[in-house]
């Protein structure tokens, strides 16, 4: 039930941000669409702990700030690789073992790798991720350990 209340709040806030209008007709239409969305997600049975991690929002925000700085740093390397007069890259395919246990944590970790320029997750099998990297140096063993531990902590809330 708590998850449905959270979904209701999130939908109302999102709808109001997108519309920003206060006329009764528009508000009524918004209420109807929120209710229809609630009924549909109830019928699809997608409302559970993994799809609505409201309790972890602050942990995710902290993680997001860290990830954004990492993304900017990685961007700089790939930009250099793109505009350098001589093509100079060293692509590699590596297997990364993760400590993440829940699906949400694994998704967060795999998406963080993909979001960082220079590395893309190709496949997830159990607790192993297949990662393609633009530079082999960026994907050495241990290069993803910090991201792994931080995404596990943000999504699972456990240490290590």
């Amino acid at each position, binding site marked *: 039930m708590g998850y449905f209340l959270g979904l209701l709040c999130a939908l109302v806030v999102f709808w109001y*941000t997108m519309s920003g209008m206060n006329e009764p007709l528009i508000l009524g239409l918004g209420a109807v669409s929120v209710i229809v969305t609630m009924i549909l997600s109830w019928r699809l049975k997608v409302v559970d702990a993994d799809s609505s991690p409201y309790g972890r929002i602050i942990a995710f925000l902290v993680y997001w700030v860290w990830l954004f700085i990492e993304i900017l740093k990685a961007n700089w390397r790939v930009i250099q690789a793109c505009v350098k007069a001589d093509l*100079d890259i*060293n692509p590699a395919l590596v297997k990364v073992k993760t400590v993440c246990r829940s699906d949400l944590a694994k998704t967060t970790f795999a998406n963080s790798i993909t979001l960082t*320029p220079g590395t893309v997750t190709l496949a997830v099998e159990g607790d192993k991720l297949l990662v393609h990297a633009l530079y082999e140096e960026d994907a050495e063993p241990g290069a993803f350990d910090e991201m792994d531990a931080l995404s596990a902590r943000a999504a699972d809330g456990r240490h290590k």
Partner: protein
Amino acid sequence: MLTDAIEMFHLARPWLGGIFCLIGAILTVIGTVGVLRFPDFYTRLHAASITDTAGATALLVGMAFMAPGWVVVAKVAAIWVFLFLTGPTASHAIANAAHVAGLEPLIGRMWRDTETESEEE
């Protein structure tokens, strides 16, 4: 004075927005150059992710500076969040499709001199 600072900020806003939009456009062009230059499918995907992350962020920051009100800033922020949530999912879907289909990535150091156009591994 605070009011002076706010007024200065409002004067600088279009310029700041324009600078950020220009940076975003340049980053997007760099991403496109990378897509055209890199040798195989997987490496091109990396170049495209510049457009996805830094390019989109700079463009959206520029748009937020030029926005007429807070509602528009909130909308731009929502667009940014959704881009960052859906972008990697789409990239992963494309990369995973290529991997499942059996496309072999080029591995190892690649180096090409622009003058001689000779390729080495």
